[in-house]
């Protein structure tokens, strides 16, 4: 005979109790936290991609302008002037990107505090 006694079987069964609301709240809080973290990660990734594209486009534009015969001639004749021009363009690009980041941050709604308790 290999049956287990009824008392043991009853003890192996899940306890008879009301649902644990605390546990349910913990799970839903973790779920919300995770969703919010995923949204933030996605936003950060989008921003990185957008900035990368912007930089690549700027670099491609500069390169294209640099290929113009007149500019190439000026750069060959006065390299100092060319260096100053490159510096000015880079400074302007940096300022533009910084300004767009500040604007983006101001436009986003304030982040809510996440509680897991």
């Amino acid at each position, binding site marked *: 005979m290999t049956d287990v006694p009824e008392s043991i079987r009853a003890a192996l069964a899940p306890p008879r109790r009301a*649902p644990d609301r605390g546990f349910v709240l913990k799970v839903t809080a973790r*779920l919300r936290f995770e969703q919010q973290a995923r949204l933030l990660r996605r936003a950060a990734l989008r921003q990185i991609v957008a900035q990368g594209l912007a930089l690549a486009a700027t670099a491609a534009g500069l390169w294209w302008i640099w290929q113009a015969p007149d500019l190439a001639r000026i750069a060959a004749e006065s390299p100092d002037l060319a260096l100053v021009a490159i510096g000015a363009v880079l400074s302007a690009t940096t300022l533009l990107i910084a300004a767009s980041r500040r604007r983006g941050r101001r436009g986003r709604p304030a982040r809510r505090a996440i509680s897991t308790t």
Partner: protein
Amino acid sequence: MRWLSGRAGVKPGNEVDLALARRAAGGDEAAFAMLVEAHERPLRAFLSRQFGEDDADDIAQDAFLKAWRRSASFDGRARYATWLTRIAWNCAIDRRRARRDWPVDTPPEARSVAPSEAGAEVGRLLSALTPQERASLILCEGHGWTHGEAAELLAMPLGTLKSTVARAKARCRATISGGTND
């Protein structure tokens, strides 16, 4: 809910859970909370018997989060409890791999002592079993799982599962009568 029971492959009795899982897959947190409320009790009971009280809740939480993410893949062919326990079982395995000290083979007696006398006796009995025997005994005898469901969870052939359950029962009887089984 009738439209769900008519769908091919949906097991009768799974319609409510399937409908809630569908809503959860669409981002309905309230529907998922209802699933958690309905299934946390048996899942946590199994996990605490199998792995100990300390880790049971963490594994259960991880399992529910994974279940939320995979809600769309629940098709109602198996019971939600079976599907969820499988996820929890995999979470426990992942933890064991991540933590070398994961006490999966350690008898749960010391870690999950139930307050009652019967609970203490069960702890003593379970501590004499291997993890596979323990899981199959708890699920088939305590939770009313079919042998097929338990075999699928433990990734073993049906025949092997049946003999594992029989061996676990025999060991229990031997422990109760004070004899040794090995």
